[in-house]
């Protein structure tokens, strides 16, 4: 059987020689992860059991394999036992595969002859009440990875060159901040903005909240710096038509922006044949910002049809005028009602999330209104006043104490026009009283939603957006500015509602990621990608259409399929599609997989006591 497999592999002409003399001295290292694993899995017994597996010459367990002494233990065993393959039974490979591969490499072992058996997430954590079963499962998982290591070839990582040019999508504060930071560090930046000018939402806002510092001058400086920067190329009224490629080497096509009306549709169809221009870039930052939920979505608040009911950005514009006048008749409003959570925190009718910035800008707007119209009344309806952030709480208190802004705790149920006023039906849940307020002007803090076209852009870039249309980050805590697609980063409200400070921080963080990427001459990529056994390939092209990463193409001259290793993610779709078994993913050959399955099913090839390998 063994001989037959070897023959088959030789026939496949794949790694036969490399494996000769390997896969015979495997070490197994079982981690306790404190009580995370050892509390459920009998690690001692598991170590004993796997010692009997074919090819295993060493097995041990230890408290924390990822710790320095744990890694030292592995290094020592590699040297002392002359190991040529390793299975670490621990947590998910996404945690520490890289750690242990470094360890193996440091001890002179090819890192691709190391495998992780995930006996924490896939075993101890899900079988906490079943100690016996969990231990058996752990042993089976380890046995299957031992079988895999037996077939693993030593591989070398692939290198791909990096184009040190950045594309930034969005010319607001986020996009400009990223562009400047990266350009200042010496790299070229293309900044593409759909609108006719730079500045984004900030150009619609007069003052910051809390500090009430004017934004116009610093914004102008920033815009000027971007426009004058020798390494930044600004493309206005332009947008991304398509993108292809991969981290370090993207090709993007930019084209004149479609009018905003075309974007209102669900998928602004991209088939308008306007000539696009291609650019090669190494990284992309998405900084497409936000917009406000249209008032037409808020039926109980008049659906946008009631005069003198405006959203917060419109109110910013009213504040910017010399004299604050309401839209209907130009009168100075004597009583303004601010309605927060207009569509936010409303999974039934609006959006489920909190829009984050409204509590503070409402406090600001109410305070500014009171300064502008000293005898005017400002009333705010809020559920929870969310002023987390330095000096924000103090600011909101100032609006109450000094600005005499009246806060009522409760959501507004309905508003409508009566005569020349707007009647607001609200409640103060603290007093337990319903209130009816006749206002001259009502300002709705409409929910913050992703920019129109964000989801479509996500599809073009192959960077995923969530069900709400915000771009998804790689990890909410530790990788907040990386998208799930390598080389595409996120800045600002495109990822979720954010205030200016957070947006600027995020933009800086995205810049850091880009600079890190651009600091390397080439990128190292996992070599566990697909290959084509040319003598078996009939050039049918099935794999080309099966590949989700556009990593496949047909060589017209040789009439065989080819793999772009930089795009291939090793998913195996081509392997399944290929009728001739000509597609193979390195170190994931079918016979390896079958041996792994066999091991899990209990066909564990224990060596017989007398026939030591």
């Amino acid at each position, binding site marked *: 059987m063994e001989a037959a497999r070897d023959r088959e592999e030789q026939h496949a002409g794949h790694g036969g020689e490399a494996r000769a003399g390997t896969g015979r001295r495997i070490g197994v290292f079982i981690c306790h992860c404190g009580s995370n694993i050892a509390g459920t899995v009998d690690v001692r017994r598991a170590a004993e059991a796997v010692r009997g597996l074919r090819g295993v010459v060493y097995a041990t367990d230890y408290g924390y394999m990822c710790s320095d002494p744990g890694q030292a233990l592995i290094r020592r065993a590699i040297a002392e036992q002359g190991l040529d393959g390793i299975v670490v039974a621990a947590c998910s490979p996404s945690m520490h595969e890289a750690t242990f591969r470094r360890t193996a490499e440091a001890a002179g072992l090819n890192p691709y002859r190391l495998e992780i058996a995930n006996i924490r997430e896939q075993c101890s954590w899900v079988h906490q009440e079943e100690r016996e079963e969990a231990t058996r499962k752990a042993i089976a998982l380890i046995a299957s990875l031992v079988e895999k290591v037996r077939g693993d070839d030593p591989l070398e990582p692939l290198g791909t060159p990096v184009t040190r040019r950045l594309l930034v999508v969005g010319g607001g504060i986020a996009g400009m901040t990223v562009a400047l930071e990266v350009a200042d560090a010496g790299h070229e930046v293309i900044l593409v903005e759909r609108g006719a000018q730079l500045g984004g939402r900030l150009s619609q806002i007069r003052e910051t909240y809390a500090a009430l510092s004017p934004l116009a001058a610093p914004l102008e400086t920033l815009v000027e710096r971007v426009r004058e920067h020798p390494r930044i190329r600004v493309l206005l009224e332009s947008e991304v038509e398509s993108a292809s490629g991969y981290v370090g080497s993207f090709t993007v096509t930019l084209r004149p922006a479609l009018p905003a009306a075309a974007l209102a549709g669900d998928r602004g169809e991209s088939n308008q044949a306007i000539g696009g221009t291609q650019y090669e870039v190494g990284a992309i930052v998405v900084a497409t910002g936000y917009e406000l939920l249209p008032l037409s979505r808020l039926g*109980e608040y008049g659906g946008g049809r009631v005069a003198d009911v405006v959203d917060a950005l419109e109110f910013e514009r009213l504040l910017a005028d010399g004299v604050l006048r309401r839209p209907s008749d130009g009168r100075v409003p004597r009583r303004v009602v601010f309605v927060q*959570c207009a569509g936010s925190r409303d*999974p039934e009718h609006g959006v489920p999330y909190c829009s984050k910035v409204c509590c503070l800008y409402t406090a600001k707007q109410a305070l500014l209104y009171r300064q502008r119209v000293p005898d005017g009344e400002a009333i705010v309806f809020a559920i929870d006043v969310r002023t987390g952030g330095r000096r924000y709480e103090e600011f909101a208190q100032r609006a109450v104490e000094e600005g005499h802004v009246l806060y009522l705790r409760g959501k*507004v*149920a309905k508003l409508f026009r009566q005569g020349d006023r707007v009647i607001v039906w609200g409640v103060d849940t603290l007093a337990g009283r*319903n209130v009816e307020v006749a206002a001259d002007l009502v300002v709705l803090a409409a929910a913050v939603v992703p920019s129109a076209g964000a989801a479509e852009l996500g599809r073009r870039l192959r960077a995923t957006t969530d069900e709400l249309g915000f771009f998804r980050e790689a990890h909410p805590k530790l990788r907040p500015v990386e998208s799930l697609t390598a080389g595409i980063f996120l800045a600002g409200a495109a990822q979720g509602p954010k205030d200016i400070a957070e947006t600027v921080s995020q933009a800086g963080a995205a810049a850091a990621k880009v600079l890190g990427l651009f600091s390397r001459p080439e990128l190292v990529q996992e070599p566990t990608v697909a290959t084509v056994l040319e003598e078996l390939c009939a050039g049918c092209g099935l794999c080309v259409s099966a590949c989700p990463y556009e990593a496949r193409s047909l060589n017209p001259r040789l009439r065989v399929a080819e793999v772009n290793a930089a795009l291939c993610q090793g998913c195996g779709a081509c392997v399944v599609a290929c009728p001739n078994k000509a597609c193979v993913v390195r170190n994931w050959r079918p016979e390896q997989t079958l041996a792994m399955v066999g091991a899990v099913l209990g066909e564990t090839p224990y060596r017989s006591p007398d026939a030591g390998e």
Partner: protein
Amino acid sequence: MKVALLPEGLRSRLQQRVEEASGQNVLACYQCGKCSAGCPVAGVMDLLPNQVIRLVQLGLVEEALTSQTIWYCAACLTCAARCPKGVDLPRVMEALRELAMERSGDHLPPDRLPAEALAEWPQQAVIGGFRKYTW
């Protein structure tokens, strides 16, 4: 005076009954008050609708049962239609009414309705009243 909260624990028997009968999770309510703000008869209620829900949240169902609010709810569903958390308040109110009548019988005994009004009311008001106010 302080209320010794939760003598029966977070999930009192009565609270559980109200939730089961109404099919509503009262803790889904985050007390924004939108229900009260739009309620057409809040003006005559002793407790606002959100306050009744609050009492049920706190396990103080007995107090909710003594409130006149549960009898004033006309099940017009304005509150339910606008509730951001999808809490169907009229169902909670009805569950409370049932609980109250289970204990003290008909809230509005049919034989005590004035004859002249009976002649005037539309039939659906009378039948609706029987449905809501008798056990």
